[in-house]
């Protein structure tokens, strides 16, 4: 039997007899509802009798239809009753209280706040954030000192694994990036220095830029994107799945267990990466010069070696070690900040990368001022 709706209205008594028949499921209820609305539009009844005896299939969609009709009646204060309920329908409706459902409830999506409130909250959060970073740096320093004093307690096995992931695995991409930057620097320098016949100074440009600034910075940004993010995601997931709570409940300090190995591993990996990065950049410069300019290789290399001294090299490595601690620390910290569900792990990962890069840039500025004054 096809689904159908018949409405018979007694004009004298103003009673509507509504008869539903056939299969009432999610696929045809909306059509029947549209028919009902069209046929009853603008009418007022004293009574509405809903007849269901010929309904062959009834589920929630049918129930929703019945409730819509009931709501229609309630709105115009017309008497509503259902007749001819089959056993199936009775069974189905036994689970619910159809009268209470006649009152619609309000569905609220958690509201988005206005721009002013959000700006205010963001400012407060920033202040809070700075405080948290300082507290975290303090905690990490204490934990690091503890680790130095008790080297046996440090999880060297973990450090090895993290060193491989954060350090060794980053080498191919780092070499590619640095080599290309070396090429770009050399080409840029060639264009400018040629005008003065001073092409040989390309060697100085590339070497100093690499060793002092770009090497530490690019390496740090890469590590922030790879490992800072990974730490935040790992620790955040552990937080969500109560693994951090489990550590604490066993009396294991999560700082010692998770943060120290990560910071130590990245701090060990970073100078190695920096060395590789510097060499790759300088090689990029050399290859460019060999291909496009006729400067003898030995002369270029001598010029390169003369241009950098121990002080510059020391600056680069000192910076990269500080960056390593900042990046891995802030990555772990963002992980620990995760509250609630999986969505927040994503947010904390993003925030780990952003704060990591931010800290790199700020501290790089500070170092440049210190070293040049």
């Amino acid at each position, binding site marked *: 039997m096809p689904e159908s709706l018949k409405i018979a209205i007694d004009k004298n008594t103003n009673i509507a007899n509504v008869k539903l028949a056939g299969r009432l499921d999610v696929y045809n*209820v*909306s059509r029947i*509802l549209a028919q009902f609305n069209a046929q009853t539009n603008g009418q007022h009844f004293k009574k509405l009798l809903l007849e269901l005896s010929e309904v062959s299939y009834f*589920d929630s969609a049918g129930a*929703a239809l019945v*409730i819509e009709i009931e709501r229609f009646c309630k709105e115009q204060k017309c008497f509503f009753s259902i007749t001819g309920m089959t056993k199936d329908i009775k069974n189905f409706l036994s*689970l*619910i209280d159809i009268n209470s*459902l006649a009152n619609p409830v309000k569905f*609220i999506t958690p509201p988005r706040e206005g721009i002013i409130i959000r700006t205010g909250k963001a400012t407060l959060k920033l202040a809070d954030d700075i405080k948290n970073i300082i507290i975290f740096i303090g905690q990490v320093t204490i934990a690091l000192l503890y680790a130095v004093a008790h080297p046996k307690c440090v999880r060297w096995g973990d450090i090895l694994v993290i060193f491989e992931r954060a350090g060794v695995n980053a080498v191919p991409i780092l070499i590619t990036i640095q080599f290309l930057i070396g090429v770009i620097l050399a080409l840029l320098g060639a264009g400018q220095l040629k005008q003065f016949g001073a092409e040989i100074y390309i060697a100085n440009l590339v070497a100093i830029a690499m060793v002092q600034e770009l090497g530490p910075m690019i390496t740090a940004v890469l590590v922030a994107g790879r490992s800072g993010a990974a730490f935040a995601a790992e620790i955040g997931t552990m937080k969500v799945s109560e693994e951090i709570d489990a550590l604490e409940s066993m009396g294991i300090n999560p700082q010692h267990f998770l943060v120290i190995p990560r910071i130590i591993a990245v701090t060990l990996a970073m100078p190695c990466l920096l060395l590789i990065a510097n060499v790759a950049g300088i090689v990029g410069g050399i290859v460019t010069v060999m291909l496009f300019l006729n400067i003898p290789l030995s002369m270029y290399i001598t010029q390169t070696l003369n241009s950098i001294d121990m002080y510059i090299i020391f600056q680069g490595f000192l910076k990269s070690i500080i960056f390593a601690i900042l990046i891995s620390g802030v990555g772990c910290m963002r992980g620990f900040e995760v509250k609630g569900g999986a969505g927040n792990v994503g947010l904390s990962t993003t925030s780990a990368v952003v704060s990591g890069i931010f800290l790199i840039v700020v501290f790089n500025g500070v170092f440049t001022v210190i070293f040049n004054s």
Partner: protein
Amino acid sequence: MNKPSDKFSNSIIQVCNLTTGYGDLIIHKNISFNIEKGEIVAICGGSGCGKSTLLRHMIGLETPKSGDILIDNESIVNANQKEKLKILTKTGVLFQSGALFGSLTLAENIKLPIKEYTNLPSETIEILVQLKLEMVNLSGFENYLPSEISGGMKKRAGLARAIALDPMILFFDEPSAGLDPVSSADLDNLILQINKSLGATIVIVTHELASIFEVAERVIMLDKETKSIISDGTPEDLKRDKTNRQTYDFFNRIPSIIERSND
């Protein structure tokens, strides 16, 4: 044990010569059984015997090594993506943790499958949501986030979402895990009511004896050693059946580590 009959039958689920596993590891070896419309079946067995694995195969999340699974006479194993979706509208699953989406309110969680599969007007969808929440006794919690309600409520909300499209078959993975006895009994009660009022077939993975005796009409017992079904029958029968030691121990709560003096 029921033998799987020819292709078109009354059985709503037919598992035929199913062999499953991960990589080289075989979990089930050539198992077959049928589940009839409206039945409440418990799948049980010790930890790691592959109950969840069997369930994941029945809802098409994993592909078996060989054999077939028919849901309402359609193979979910050989179905293409579109056919699979159609089969899946006939089933609902309540995962162990409830698996509610944390960023959505309860109402939005339930709306999700309804919006995805139907083109009902939003007013009707809202009535449906209200109806489902009423069915699981969560009226008034429409606008709560999952993180704001208790474990038992999460399970019930998950159930409301699982029944959003009035499925013919409902799968439960360890519904009583992590619930207090009262919430667990509430959930059992709800399962029975849903079976009665919606006529849904219900498949429950559980090792909660109290639940099994409360709701299950039939128990399928899996075994890790033989990778097969070792018992199939009513809970009362299995409890009395002494021919199979594992089953007897399971139903009479006999630990496997005690010395059996009567051996």
